[in-house]
């Protein structure tokens, strides 16, 4: 059974047809890369998969379960997590509190109005564990405002990992990072076990190509090429729309 299946997905904003009949089939444990020029509809595709946007037609399935009509807030509970291209964190809080919120989102405890969250060791411990996976547990108590951009990227990933997703959607995890920071993030991603399926949008080809097994090329909302690394890189259409500049 596929981890993530998308069939016939369409989305228009007024007269702008952003997603045109996209089909996607991602196997469990796969590392899938989605590439395409600016405006190809990559982030829109992510928003359709996570349910932040509703598709006009088509369907999204997670491990065989049709989730097209499932509200986006319920999808993390089914094992889907995402990161954002534009870092979306809780800037007034500490790193550990950010991860704690990610953990709390899947716990029935989130409705509890009388216990002390900071004193709840379960969340603190699990939070440290998630931060250790991205190498940040030593600065867990640091306010987010005192962290670097690269550290924030890793907090984003730690929050997604903390939810122990089955399918992880990464929206440009390397965007805006220095070479050193890129290496750190790359290491975090390589360490994610194979029971997590990863779909990643990325512009940074050298790091991304190394990471992904299968690549999907989007152009004007359509899937142009799909295949393994060599197939896609050597395809003349890829060179035309993407690499040929």
């Amino acid at each position, binding site marked *: 059974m596929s981890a993530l299946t998308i069939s016939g997905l369409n989305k228009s904003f007024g007269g702008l047809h952003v997603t045109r009949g996209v089909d996607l089939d991602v196997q469990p444990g796969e590392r899938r890369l989605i590439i395409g020029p600016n405006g190809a509809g990559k982030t829109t595709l992510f928003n359709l998969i996570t349910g932040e946007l509703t598709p006009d037609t088509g369907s999204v399935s997670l491990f065989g379960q049709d989730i097209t009509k499932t509200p986006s807030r319920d999808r993390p509970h089914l094992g889907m997590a995402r990161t954002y291209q534009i870092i979306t*964190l*809780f800037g007034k809080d500490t790193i550990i509190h950010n991860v704690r*919120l990610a953990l709390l989102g899947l716990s029935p405890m989130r*409705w509890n*109005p009388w216990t002390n*969250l900071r004193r709840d060791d379960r969340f603190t411990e699990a939070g440290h564990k998630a931060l250790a996976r991205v190498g940040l547990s030593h600065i867990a108590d640091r306010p987010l405002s005192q962290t670097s951009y690269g550290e924030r990227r890793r907090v984003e990933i730690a929050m997604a990992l903390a939810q122990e997703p089955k399918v992880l959607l990464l929206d440009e995890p390397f965007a805006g990072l220095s070479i050193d920071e890129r290496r750190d993030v790359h290491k975090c991603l390589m360490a994610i076990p194979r029971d997590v399926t990863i779909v990643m949008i990325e512009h940074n080809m050298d790091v991304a190509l190394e990471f992904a097994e299968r690549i999907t090329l989007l152009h004007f909302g359509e899937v142009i090429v799909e295949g393994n690394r060599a197939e896609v890189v050597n395809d003349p259409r890829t060179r035309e729309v993407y690499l040929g500049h």
Partner: protein
Amino acid sequence: MIEIFSATNKLRFIALAIALVALISLPFWVSGIYYINVGSQILFFAVFALGLNILVGYAGLVSLGHAGLFGISAYATAYMLQQGFGHTTAVAVALVIGLASMALFAVLSLRSSGIGFIMITLALGQILWGLAYRWISVTDGDNGIPVRGRPAPFGYSLTDPVNFYYASLIIFIVAVAMVFIFVRSPFGAALMGTRDQPRRMNALGYHVWMIRFYACLFSGLLTAVSGILFVYYTNFISPQTLALTSSAEVLLMVISGGPGTLLGPIVGATLVVVIKTVVSGFIERWNFLLGAIFVAIVILVPEGIVPGSIRLWRLIVRKRAAAPPAPAATTERTP
């Protein structure tokens, strides 16, 4: 690190103990009934401001219709008493009506946040004011509804100003404790998350609308309780209480004291009530003075009196600490 933490905790505990002793002993050291009554007013307006602060400070939803909710509970109490029901029934009905109105407010206004939320709550508050003013068969319009007598729970007649003060104090302490616990709780953290990053909270699996709805109900509960205390205090309710200026006044209490802090609304309520009641006895143009104070707050401590004072205090302490040696170490801390 741990030692400093427990030291501040100890300081906090001492401050809390002093505040409690001061509040409990207030009737013994203030001269006259008048000031005890001012104390009661500060207490129930503080409960009102604490309730609004749940939305303004912790949910990031600014309501300009809370005087309507405050007033509808007061009206419900007065109306039930006028119809010959007992105090228990009147208070229970007032709480239910206050909460039900808040739920209706929430369902209608939570369709948006930001300015949309402000405008919808403003409109709903004005509708309640209009009802109080025009639904004469129930509210007697501009004449208002008088209330005869106060309840006597456990044999303590609240007609006595000192007893009323203590009743207000107990309710105030319960309200403060509730908010204190709420803010540290997982649900409180979730609510503040929806304030800062609603989209992210949704993507993390939270039901943002429902979290805000429950926060509204909590706010509505404190508002209704303070409205009931108010009507028993003044023994009278008229449309004036529901007017937009009342909504703005309680919002100013929250904003001037410091939204999103526990002490802020209490300090703000104290400031407004003291100027309105005590200072207005000496200065005819007390509105002018209140306005001037708000302007000063906006200029000096725009984040509110409580967080602003803490910031200024830290600034002074750091300057003092940095003055004797070379000031090189201070550069790191600036954000």
